[in-house]
């Protein structure tokens, strides 16, 4: 069987290491659908679980390669987290002052599902802040030593963005309190929060891409720690938080469907529910996909830490 076309779907590192011998083996095998399907499962496995480049490296090269991989996982993790947290914030903004809120507050199980969603997001936010801080602190020290101004500027941008946004939020909520309705102000606040997260995420991603992670301990509050290790464990906690949040949101949706008649009774905006349903479905789908991928990314990262 000629398997050249199918082998192309394997990851690059796999090609380099096994392509020749794998093709030679396939040439001896008869063509069969079950073999094709089996190769496809092998391809998925190669992307998710194995990194054959490690088999070909040793010593310092191996450590360098693993740290490079970890850096790439941090970058992927940040993008996934942003993709996750943006619909989560938008969903939360949608609930603000909505007719769902009174029904939710008066029903324990419905409220519990919403709290689960919020707790999951909070766990993920705290974990990514701790993990991100350690990695960024390590890169910050390296950037100062290497005099990398391009990276140091990226550290300042989120701080300036934060100060500008805080000033703007205070202006809207204090000075314009009587001019803009509360519901609109609430939505503006949530959108600004998402905007700040996006700016911060983009800067952090660039810092991780441009900076270098060293296999060294850093001194923090008088204790020696290995930042890349703690950050990867934090990534696992982030993934767990995302999964808790997504599962709670799914349960929330099922309950919202159950209490739909009570929700409709407390609302006079029929069309509002169509928008709500669409936003809920899109947010849940994005959060489900990102939390699943984050789980895999954290698992792969943990594997490098174990090495």
């Amino acid at each position, binding site marked *: 069987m000629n*398997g050249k076309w199918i082998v192309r779907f394997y990851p690059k590192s*796999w090609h380099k290491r*096994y392509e*020749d*011998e*794998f*093709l*030679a*083996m*396939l040439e*001896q*095998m008869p063509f069969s659908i*079950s*073999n094709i*399907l*089996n*190769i*496809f*499962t*092998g*391809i998925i*496995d*190669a992307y998710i679980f*194995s990194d*054959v480049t*490690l*088999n070909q490296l040793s010593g310092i090269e191996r450590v360098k390669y693993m740290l490079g991989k970890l850096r790439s996982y941090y970058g992927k993790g940040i993008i996934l987290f942003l993709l996750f947290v943006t619909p989560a914030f938008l969903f939360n903004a949608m609930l603000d002052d909505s007719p769902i809120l009174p029904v939710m507050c008066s029903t324990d199980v419905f409220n519990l599902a919403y709290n689960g969603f919020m707790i999951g997001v909070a766990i993920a936010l705290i974990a990514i802040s701790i993990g991100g801080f350690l990695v960024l602190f390590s890169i910050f020290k390296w950037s100062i030593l290497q005099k990398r101004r391009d990276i140091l500027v990226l550290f300042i941008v989120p701080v300036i963005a934060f100060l500008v946004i805080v000033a703007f939020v205070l202006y809207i909520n204090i000075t314009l309190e009587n001019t803009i309705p509360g519901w609109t102000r609430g939505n503006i606040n949530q959108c600004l929060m998402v905007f700040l997260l996006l700016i911060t995420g983009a800067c952090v991603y660039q810092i991780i891409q441009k900076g270098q992670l060293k296999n060294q301990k850093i001194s923090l509050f008088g204790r020696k720690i290995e930042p890349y290790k703690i950050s990867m464990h934090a990534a696992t906690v982030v993934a767990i938080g995302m999964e808790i949040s997504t599962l709670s949101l799914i349960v929330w949706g099922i309950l919202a469907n159950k209490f739909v008649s009570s929700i409709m009774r407390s609302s006079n905006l029929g069309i509002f529910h169509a928008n709500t349903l669409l936003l809920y479905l899109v947010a849940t789908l994005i959060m489900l996909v990102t939390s699943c991928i984050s789980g895999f990314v954290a698992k792969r990262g943990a594997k490098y830490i174990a090495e």
Partner: protein
Amino acid sequence: MSLNNMGRFSDPSLLILVSLADKPKHGYAMIEDIQKISGIKLGPGTLYGAIARLEERGYIEPLLTEDRRKPYRLTALGENILKQELKSLQSFTIQGLRRLGVSV
């Protein structure tokens, strides 16, 4: 150290280690040998998924050859792991047979 942490690849890995126990073999020879000794036909994707894991853990290693079909052999570590796994299976089999009232 054991094959238990290999998830769904622990059974194919054991079959590969047993197949390489007598002499080095390349991929297709392993598939044929495993089918002969166990009746199980490993698919190419499964075989190379297990080979990558066994190589990564240092249980098997490729032999240098000009042939495109690269043969693999057991390492000393792989041999020890295989012995451990087979002994554990043997004890498990004996327990099972005793419970069934079969004399061993």
